[in-house]
């Protein structure tokens, strides 16, 4: 019973993960400029990745596999915003698109 429940939840997680993943991919192709695309990439990297790894963790059960999956998840959650921030920052400094002074008042 518990096992069945776990499997159901995990399938739910994986399914939602897939949907988010594909949505993020579509956004990556569809949005007009870098910063918007960055938000779409954020979708795939935060919740989609977490859900898929969570689904795997539920399938794995307690043990070393779960620990490693958790480690990967934490690593992604720490590094992905950092990398996005660095990217955004260097895009702004590279003089791309957004002029903060102009948009501040609008």
């Amino acid at each position: 019973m518990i096992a069945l429940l776990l499997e159901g939840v995990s399938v739910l997680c994986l399914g939602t993960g897939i949907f988010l993943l594909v949505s993020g991919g579509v956004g990556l192709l569809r949005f007009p400029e870098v910063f918007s695309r960055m938000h779409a990439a954020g979708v795939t990297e935060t919740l989609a990745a977490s859900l898929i790894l969570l689904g795997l963790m539920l399938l794995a059960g307690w043990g070393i596999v779960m620990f490693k999956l958790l480690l990967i998840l934490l690593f992604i959650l720490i590094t992905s915003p950092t990398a996005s921030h660095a990217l955004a920052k260097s895009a702004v400094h590279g003089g791309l698109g957004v002029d903060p002074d102009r948009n501040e008042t609008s």
Partner: protein
Amino acid sequence: MKLQSGSEPGADALKYRLSLFLLLVVLWLGNSGLYSFLLLGFGLASVIFVIWVSHCLAVVDQESQPLHLARRLPKFFGWLIVKIIRSNIDVVRLIWLGNRAISPCSTRLPLGQKSDLGRVIYANAITLTPGTVAMDMDDDTVLVHALTREGIEDLQEGEMRRRVAELER
């Protein structure tokens, strides 16, 4: 960097090193899965070596081992997860609605944190919630880009900032 860590009292430096030690030991044991005498010995040697190297590189201090925040972190993460889920739904909706639905804009928001660590947590929390990206930061403002006007307004209400500030109180 050197100056910062050098000026700390000895007891504190020891505390951070101890916490790093525990962290590394957990990492090794969790990853290895083999508990033979030989490998545990290697593990201990590796942990000590890494602590020595990190000490040389001056990366062990208050910023990398945020012990003073540890007690309040779980509550913050709980809130952040809910926030992330909600903003994910928003962004996915926008993606399928297409380009007309979005109105990318950027603005500077005030930072209310005392330490660099607090600012970093705030910036990463902003970036981690899809729909808003922290683009640049100086001492007291952060430049945020959002997919929609609502995203900015949501941040301007300042709940996230208040929670991060609470974290380092």
